[in-house]
């Protein structure tokens, strides 16, 4: 750093320094939660209200995330399942990715449907992984049983009690999608919501994908749209605190530090230019 003024250093803080401070700002709140308030944002309220207003006996299709995206969607998925299992509705799980089956097992081990008196095959079941992405979505919409000959364990679909009455898209009341892929979140709109707008579509994507899903939300094709980050808010709302609330503090820590860095960088940059003869 010899020969560099303090302004030069602040204008170009080495990335290693930024990385280290951001890391500390994230780890500290995880080790020692700050207990910052968890305000419930509008999208989470809408998500909650949509599930709360489901008529008894409604059939809900849950398209859960793949394994790679699981850590990001963990708290939102677990909280949503807690909420759904507490309601008198029936659930059909679907995996759009081959690795999703492991996600399903993990989710169920965390939520424990038995605690809510729910029975596999009667109140919920998993149709497994169907390859093809949008082609699979289309197939499910057109003829459910043709697309799903058996559940994920290989049990023939005719032997699953709750599957007896499912024919096609018209039997579903809601789709809930958790995904890190834009093709999946928009695919459900193209293959299901466009065909049957009456279905409520709840969509949880990575926060950076929100702007691209927003046009569909504004057009009324998505009933509730949220990023994966506010899982803590949902946990707080349904009274089931989990990993999401802890993450909220870490989130605040990292983003506050980032804001501080941006301010420092700009002050240094402006000061340097003023030193050179005024701001242009």
């Amino acid at each position: 750093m010899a020969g560099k003024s303090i302004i030069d250093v602040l204008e170009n803080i080495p990335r290693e320094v930024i990385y280290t401070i951001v890391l500390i700002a994230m780890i500290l709140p995880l080790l020692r939660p700050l207990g910052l308030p968890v305000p419930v944002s509008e999208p989470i309220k809408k998500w909650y209200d949509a599930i709360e207003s489901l008529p008894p006996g409604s059939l809900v299709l849950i398209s859960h995330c793949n394994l790679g995206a699981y850590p990001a969607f963990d708290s939102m998925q677990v909280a949503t399942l807690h909420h759904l299992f507490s309601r008198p509705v029936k659930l059909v799980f679907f995996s759009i990715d081959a690795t999703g089956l492991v996600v399903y097992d993990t989710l169920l081990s965390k939520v424990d449907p038995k605690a809510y008196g729910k029975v596999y095959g009667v109140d919920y079941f998993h149709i497994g992984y169907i390859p093809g992405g949008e082609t699979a979505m289309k197939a499910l919409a057109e003829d459910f049983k043709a697309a799903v000959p058996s559940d994920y364990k290989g049990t023939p679909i005719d032997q699953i009690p709750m599957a007896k009455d499912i024919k096609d898209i018209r039997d579903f009341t809601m789709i809930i999608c958790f995904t890190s892929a834009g093709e999946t979140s928009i695919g459900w709109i193209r293959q299901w919501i466009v065909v049957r707008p009456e279905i409520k579509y709840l969509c949880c994507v990575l926060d950076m994908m929100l702007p691209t899903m927003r046009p569909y939300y504004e057009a009324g094709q998505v009933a509730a749209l949220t990023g994966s980050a506010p899982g803590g808010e949902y946990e707080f709302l349904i009274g089931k605190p989990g990993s999401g609330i802890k993450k909220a503090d870490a989130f605040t820590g990292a983003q506050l530090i980032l804001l501080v860095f941006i301010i420092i960088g700009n002050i240094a940059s402006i000061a340097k230019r003023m030193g050179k003869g005024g701001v242009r």
Partner: protein
Amino acid sequence: MPFNGLPLDVLQIVAGRYLDLVVLLVIWVVTILGVNMLKRGWTPKWRKIAGLEALEEVVGRAAEMGKPVHFTPGYGGLTGTTSPQVVAGLAVFAELAKLCARYDVPIICSVGDPTVLGVAAELYKQAYMAEGKIDRARPEEAIRYLTGSQFAFASAVAGIAEREKPAGNVMVGPFWAESMMFAEVFYRIGSIQIAGTARIYQIPFFAIVCDYVIIGDEMFATGAYLTKEPYSISSIFVQDLVKIFALALTIVGLIAIHLGSNVFIEFLKW
């Protein structure tokens, strides 16, 4: 079994897709007519796409520094919904490989989907053949399949960047969350960067880090732009005509809705 005893000749259009079909047919006919009419005489003027113009700069810099150039079409394949972007990326790769062959600059092509592997290797060989340097082509070293797993692919590309320190990095194709990682790692090692994607989630990341960005539908003009064949350039002109038509439709629809008419919306549902 295949036909369920149904005759193939009795067909009907799926409800709600009449307009889609008409629009598709109109675009199709206009493209064929336009391309055939335009290729005979007048060639339209086209604006420069800075990102594509800079390919030569990237290769020139690499030649001066004695370092390789890195290219990746992302880890999208030729069979999914993002395949048009991969095709566009491969068109850029074909041109880049030709420039690299001309200036004797090694090129590294990181592939994340095996369907792209053979095509990329073929394009690479053809580029060297076109420059009369097929004896110097090393497809087995240049074209590298890394993995089909997103973040393993990201790590592998980052590893190549750190180890081989390419002077330039060109990434054109579909990109997901790995985009920022690529852009930052290559920025760190001082590569000049050209990035292009039609996946709008990733454009902001490229825009803040890369030197040149090819945005949205510019991607789909790359093939025609780089080959500079009148036939292809004409097809881009037709593409712009269709866009103008779409814009006009939007304005008509806007006016109709504000005048309280739902006719236009119903027409779109036809």
